[in-house]
């Protein structure tokens, strides 16, 4: 235990103080198929990084490897300078060395899923207080107060006592974003947050995400929303066949696509 504390202290005082998430040479195979072929990513505090790529390019897998919903085969992930320690499992595959560390880091990395994944047996309010009370051990009254404020912010306070299946997709996704915010996360991970929504509901979710970006939150957003990538994000990352094809300033990237693949990709969207 004391070793853990020492390691954590050392990691926290590492020079990369501004780094929120740092991924180095991440690889991941599903069976014979290599989905990630050595991905690196650097997200500073306050960065809003849009991760683009056609389906199968590995963008969702990369995001899920950061909070270890998938275990990367190799490579390192640092969150807030702290390295997620891995070890060799009995089957020769890599696995987390300390699941407590992973849980602690996950609590700082709130995730918003494509299919919302709100806990369907809890009301919206219960969804928002479950993790803060049980993971962060914060007092319930305080969590409830914050939850109500967050629901007001995303505009669904009137639905606080609804169950998720009783709300529209857009409302559910806004509730899911509020649930993520309730953790006061250091980084927010968005896994195609608008892909499961009806077109007319996309706007309400993007508005909330835009307001989060404007208040300086650190966000990694896997998305197909070109408008969001171009106008809101501070950096665009384009994955192609499991590799980082190009990274750059959004205006620059969209005005002068640096690679033929990215040019092709945005051309398909503009059709």
């Amino acid at each position: 235990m004391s070793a853990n504390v020492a390691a954590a202290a050392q990691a926290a005082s590492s020079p990369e103080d501004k780094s929120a998430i740092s991924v180095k040479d991440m690889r991941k195979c599903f069976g014979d198929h290599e989905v990630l072929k050595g991905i690196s990513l650097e997200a500073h505090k306050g960065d809003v990084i849009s991760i683009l790529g056609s389906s199968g390019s590995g963008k969702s897998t990369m995001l899920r490897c950061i909070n270890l919903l998938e275990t990367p085969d190799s490579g390192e992930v640092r969150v807030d300078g702290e390295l997620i320690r891995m070890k060799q499992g009995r089957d020769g595959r890599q696995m987390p060395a300390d699941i407590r560390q992973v849980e602690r880091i996950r609590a700082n990395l709130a995730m918003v899923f494509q299919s919302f994944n709100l806990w369907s047996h809890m009301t919206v309010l219960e969804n928002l207080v479950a993790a803060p009370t049980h993971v962060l051990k914060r007092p319930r009254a305080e969590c409830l107060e914050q939850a109500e404020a967050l629901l007001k912010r995303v505009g669904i306070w009137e639905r606080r006592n609804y169950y998720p299946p009783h709300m529209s997709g857009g409302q559910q996704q806004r509730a899911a974003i509020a649930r993520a915010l309730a953790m006061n996360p250091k980084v927010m991970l968005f896994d195609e947050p608008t892909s499961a929504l009806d077109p007319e509901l996309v706007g309400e979710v993007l508005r909330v995400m835009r307001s989060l970006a404007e208040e300086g939150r650190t966000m990694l957003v896997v998305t197909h929303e070109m408008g969001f990538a171009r106008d809101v994000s501070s950096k665009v990352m384009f994955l192609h066949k499991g590799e980082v094809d190009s990274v750059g300033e959004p205006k620059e990237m969209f005005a002068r696509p640096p690679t033929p693949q990215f040019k092709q990709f945005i051309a398909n969207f503009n059709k």
Partner: protein
Amino acid sequence: MAFDFYLSTMWSVLKALPLTLEIWFFGIAFGLLIATGLTWLRASGYKLGEYFTRAYVFIFRGSPLLVQLYLIYFGLSQFDFVRHSPILWPILRDPMYCTIVAMALNTAAYESEIFRGALRAVPVGQIEAAKAFGMSAFTRFRLVTLPIALRLALPAYSTEIILMTKATALASVVTIMEMMGTAQKIQHDTFRPIEVLTCAGVIYLLLNLSIARLFAWVEYRLSPHLRPPPEQSQQIRPVPEVL
């Protein structure tokens, strides 16, 4: 006259209801305990645990409860070590205990299969969300997996409990005078099988009706999210103190 006979038979059989309920209650209570253990073993990921539960389910689900009851009550007492054991013998010489043991072992096989199916049916996304928010395996299980799995298991579980209610009638073959035993005695004394068995059947029906209603009520209470949304005014309920 016939009415009087119905009434007196009804009363006699009803007096045996507490005994039936006792077998029923302890049978399903111990059954639930064993089933929980089996489910845990099966889900633990240990190969040995999986083989054991598979074999257990194969045996206890595959053979008649009556055979199991006979084996436990008449069969086990053949062995000297059972008769001389200070722990086993007090249990196995008593027909009441034997019935409860047989019922518990039998229903545990079915229930563990019900629970296994329910656990597997919990949507992966809901568990992933719990993981992504940093919940430990235990918290995840308590707040997300278990509440969802219980709701999924409830319909099949209630059917199993109703089957168990009817199975208590088997206790009559090992000398227990519960409702069925009592009915059979009256039938032998009076040679009026139609009246007597009708009385017993009606009581079992009413008993199962109330059990089914009880489960339906619990299911209703636990699944507001699966019904169409009621009016907003009814939606508002206080957040419970304990999640």
